[in-house]
């Protein structure tokens, strides 16, 4: 690990004034520092800010999650389990118990890709780690790589689960910065790799995520997160689906769908939602929606299986959400 200075911030204003690499749970940061993928020179520990940014608030306006809430605490919170099950499940099905006790929600959405070429600097080609160097995954080991939102420069998968719940439910992100606070749609936080895969978010230098807010969505009680992995527990998604349904009998009034494990960023499947809106939900319409969701998929050999796995995952998630007793 390379040398760095370590400081503790005592409030949000002090943290953004100090700038540097923020440390909360540290579960991504320490890992990538040991691998020499991240090389911060100044670490600002923000764990003392949990009074300011560590609350879970639920009420008529919806749900507000402080960025320093730990994954485990949100996953077991009764209001979230009951009213936003897709949020609770996306957290519960991620990582291990120890990691969920450590990791915070703000850090969770900013976790880096698991692409092996990104994580191992002995590979010279990685446009995300070394802009302009190329992408070793295009012709390399790419079984777990993305099929949606890719570019000729990067096919690294966005690894997170929680983000799929946030993007499906139109969450907003509250951000603190030296120029003041701002709020953006969660859908605008992450950016697709495009020509410059090293830029992963729209955060400006020194900005700090302070909270996520979800609107009141009564039908979110009919929601779930389905995650398909190589192992039954403690693994990243090969494919996943965050689904929330507003049903009028068997007819879909509104559907919210996001896909994980298959895309370069948190992925809202609006084409699938459009297919379902106003129509009955059954195996055929779910399959048509799933085909729409993956119509633009591009595969690279070892991940040729992903569109089909993703479609089946989405169909199963939709039918399971329909069958929920709420």
């Amino acid at each position, binding site marked *: 690990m390379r040398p760095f200075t370590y400081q503790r911030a005592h409030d949000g204003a002090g943290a953004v004034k100090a700038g540097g690499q923020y440390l909360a749970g*540290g579960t991504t940061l320490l890992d990538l520092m040991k691998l020499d993928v991240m090389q911060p020179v100044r670490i600002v520990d923000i764990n003392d800010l949990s009074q300011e940014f560590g609350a879970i608030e639920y009420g008529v306006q919806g749900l507000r999650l402080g960025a320093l809430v730990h994954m485990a605490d949100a996953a077991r919170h009764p209001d979230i389990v009951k009213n936003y099950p897709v949020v609770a499940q996306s957290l519960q099905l991620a990582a291990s118990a120890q990691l969920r006790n*450590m990791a915070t929600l703000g850090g969770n959405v900013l976790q880096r890709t698991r692409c092996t070429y990104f994580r191992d600097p002995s590979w010279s080609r990685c446009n995300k780690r070394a802009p302009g160097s190329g992408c070793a995954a295009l012709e390399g080991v790419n079984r777990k790589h993305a099929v949606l939102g890719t570019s000729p420069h990067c096919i690294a998968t966005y690894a997170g689960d929680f983000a799929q719940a946030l993007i499906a439910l139109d969450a907003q992100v509250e951000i603190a910065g030296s120029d003041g606070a701002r709020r953006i749609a969660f859908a605008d936080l992450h950016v697709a790799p495009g020509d410059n895969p090293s830029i992963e978010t729209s955060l400006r230098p020194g900005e700090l995520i302070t909270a996520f807010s979800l609107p009141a969505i009564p039908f979110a009680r009919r929601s779930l997160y389905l995650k398909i992995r190589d192992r039954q527990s403690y693994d990243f998604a090969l494919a996943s689906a965050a689904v929330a349904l507003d049903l009028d009998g068997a007819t879909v009034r509104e559907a919210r769908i996001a896909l994980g494990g298959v895309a370069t960023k948190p992925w809202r499947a609006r084409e699938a939602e459009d297919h379902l809106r106003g129509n009955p939900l059954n195996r055929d319409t779910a399959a048509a929606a799933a085909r729409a969701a993956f119509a633009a998929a591009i595969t690279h050999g070892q991940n040729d299986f992903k569109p089909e796995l993703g479609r089946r995952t989405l169909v199963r998630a939709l039918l399971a959400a329909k069958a929920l007793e709420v």
Partner: protein
Amino acid sequence: MTRRTLLGSSVLAPLAPAAAAPHDSHDIPLNITLEVNRKSRALTLDPRTTLLDALREHLNLTGTKKGCDHGQCGACTVLINGTRMLSCLTLAASVRGPVTTIEGLAGEDGRLHPMQQAFIDQDAFQCGYCTPGQIMSAVGCVQEGHAGSDADIREYMSGNLCRCAAYPHIVAAIRQTAPMMEKA
């Protein structure tokens, strides 16, 4: 503004450097105090030192094991503020609150914690390398209320790998201990 109020209102408080050195030097060791197994321990550490290395290399508490050193195997699991966490992904300087390691689990009289005794009773290990992490994680698992069924235990213990595959006996040990811990 006096020097005192200036310092008092300072938004950032670097931990005390051990030696006078330029403000931004990367080489300043930090003076930190850890509470480990009910004892306060003063240490002078490179900021890069993880809690795992502080325990093993500086406090000679080698019960906590280094497996992968990347948060994937669970061998380094300890309790911080009573909650199970990975000491390999925790900077020693960032620790807030008391740390309990496998050495601190037994009573002052040396009597084994029920979870330690259950691992012996159920033969819940072979080589033993993952065992301290398994036991610390198992204590956390029961305290979090996730030891109600074998399936629950397997899910909530999935962050602790055992390459000898003693998993069925580990589950049995946790099943044995859960009612005793819940009663106590």
